[in-house]
């Protein structure tokens, strides 16, 4: 791994900015910064968002696991629990549909000039994050309920990662064929 590079703080801040610029460029070109497209996805009428996410998963997954095999990258799976991931996921989902953007796509929406994102959603997310920070000490019990930790699917089934990656890629590609054949 490029440990020395990872430790260079200023360089990393610049890398963050440059990689963010590429991400924002891609999100905008994909139409993912648009309320209409995100709501279209949640109403199951426009599958742009899922297509973007799942093709990123296929390409990203193959590359990251190759890099990991070569010793050039390490994984950073997030920990989770029923109380954390399911409850938080549902609150997030409701907010996703009401707001019509997520934290990444709202940044793209702001960049392309959506003022509801800038003056409504952004301020809301900042306040919501602050509310959570204040609730955090009191939520420790709930957040740890049903703990399953930072395990990955191959670790859970105790199999070689490629035994999961290859079938998953196949399922995703078949899913793409299916939604394209449905005209979505």
């Amino acid at each position, binding site marked *: 791994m490029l440990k020395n590079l990872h430790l260079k703080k200023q360089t990393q801040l610049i890398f963050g900015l440059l990689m*963010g610029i590429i991400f*924002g460029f*891609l999100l905008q070109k994909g139409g993912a910064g648009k309320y209409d497209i995100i709501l279209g996805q949640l109403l199951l009428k426009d599958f742009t968002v899922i297509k973007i996410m799942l093709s990123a998963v296929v390409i990203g997954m193959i590359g990251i696991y190759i890099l990991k095999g070569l010793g050039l990258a390490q994984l950073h799976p997030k920990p989770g629990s029923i109380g954390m991931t399911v409850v938080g996921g549902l609150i997030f989902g409701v907010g996703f549909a009401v707001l019509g953007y997520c934290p990444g796509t709202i940044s793209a929406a702001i960049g392309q000039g959506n003022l509801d994102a800038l003056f409504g959603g952004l301020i809301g997310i900042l306040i919501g994050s602050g509310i959570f920070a204040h609730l955090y000490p009191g939520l420790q019990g709930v957040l740890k309920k049903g703990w399953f930790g930072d395990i990955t699917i191959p670790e859970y089934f105790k199999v070689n990662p490629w035994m999961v990656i290859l079938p998953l890629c196949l399922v995703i590609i078949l899913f793409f064929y299916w939604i394209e054949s449905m005209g979505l």
Partner: protein
Amino acid sequence: MDILALKLWSPYWVGAGIGILSWFTFLLSDKPIGCSTAFARTSGMIEQALTGKFVKNQLYYQKFPAEIDWEWMFVLGIIIGSFCSAMLSGEFQLKWLPSLWIARFGLQVFPRILTAFLGGILMGIGARWANGCTSGHGISGTLQLAVSSWVAVIFFFAGGILTAYLIY
């Protein structure tokens, strides 16, 4: 350069691009793509500036310090990158209302801003509660095959789809 001026790229190419980008975030920065922690850090910085009290005594900000980090710069980059893309294609436009919203709720701006604000509060709470968003869980976590992220993304969409059908 014509391709950069296109209004829309195929979602498959965009997704593949994001996948390749994630190789480089892991390789060069040892970071998965993620966004929502940057909002929490910003919130802490704003609270600090408004109250004059350091938030580092709060449990949450001990875990996620209220400071500018890689991910914060990444989110700033998203705004700049999207702006560049929209300018190149002539899509940049200051706009208060999305067309789907207009078709359903009309032309008044205030209800949309209020709705976006309230949705934003829920999203801010939910993203930090679930410890990730559509980027950190939905893309980076799922491509690492993290169990937590596959669970999270299922519930993001379950909550989202249900609510979207209630609204429209």
